[in-house]
């Protein structure tokens, strides 16, 4: 994928479809240590060890349902092509955690791309699920927690058009601040 945000969108959909209640998306841009890391964690149904071994095999994923797709194998090879690594932990009934690390300045590392639209798309994809989006640039951090937003909103749904626009602007401004 041309942009890492596309990988994030794809992988986050797996969490959404895994009966999760809370999905955490964390991006760490550590320019000093030359690391770009993506971590996606959910508290969904998880996988047993046997399944976990198979999900990085494109033939397990693309040949059964299309639910997992080539998404995981492609993110894994993207990370490995950039002197990085990929790891996945999972436990049945507890959830799954995936980490993809890239060398920040590797020539083949795709740019992050449009993360603002990606985050908005993910958080409104299922308003019954809560999302935390945490983005670190060196020691600066932006965090969006839909539980806090829902508390303020009361009966207004998260996918109300005005709320969506507010989330979008809020993420955009937050990211501009930490990127300075």
């Amino acid at each position, binding site marked *: 994928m041309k942009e890492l945000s596309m990988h994030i969108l794809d992988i986050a959909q797996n969490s959404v479809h895994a009966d999760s209640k809370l999905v955490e998306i964390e991006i760490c841009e550590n320019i000093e240590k030359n690391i770009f890391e993506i971590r996606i964690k959910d508290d969904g149904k998880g996988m047993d060890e046997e399944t976990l071994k198979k999900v990085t*095999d494109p033939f397990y994923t693309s040949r059964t349902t299309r639910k997992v797709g080539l998404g995981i*194998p492609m993110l894994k090879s993207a990370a490995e092509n950039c002197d990085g690594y990929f790891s996945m932990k999972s436990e049945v009934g507890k959830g799954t955690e995936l980490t993809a690390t890239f060398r920040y300045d590797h020539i083949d590392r795709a740019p992050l791309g449009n993360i603002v639209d990606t985050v908005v798309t993910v958080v409104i994809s299922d308003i019954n699920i809560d999302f935390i989006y945490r983005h670190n640039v060196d020691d600066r951090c932006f965090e969006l927690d839909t539980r806090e937003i829902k508390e303020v909103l009361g009966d207004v749904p998260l996918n109300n058009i005005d709320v969506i626009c507010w989330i979008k602007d809020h993420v955009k401004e937050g990211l501009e601040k930490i990127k300075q």
Partner: protein
Amino acid sequence: MIINEIIEELKLNQLSGEKNSMKTVDGVYICDLLSWVMANGSKGDIWITVQTHLNIIAVASLLEMPMIIVPESIEVEEETLAKADEENIIVCTSELDSFTLACKLNEMGM
């Protein structure tokens, strides 16, 4: 165009799939970004790519592309070739680069 004719004409080094294949191909697609190929490649294409990861066989089989050419004599992993045999996808290498391969295929009438 018949695959076997292409292999002979371009002096390709065939690493997997049936020998003397009489299967035909209709076009050529050149791209190294797998997701892009998934979205834009077509059934029956020859696919030219520098990628050699197992994932290329998954993409080729998904799109029903019968043949992959890896340019510039890049080495292809055993795991990839074993899967290519299973899926009957013809993987070949060439010492030529992608552009030259494309020109030669064009000269042949592709």
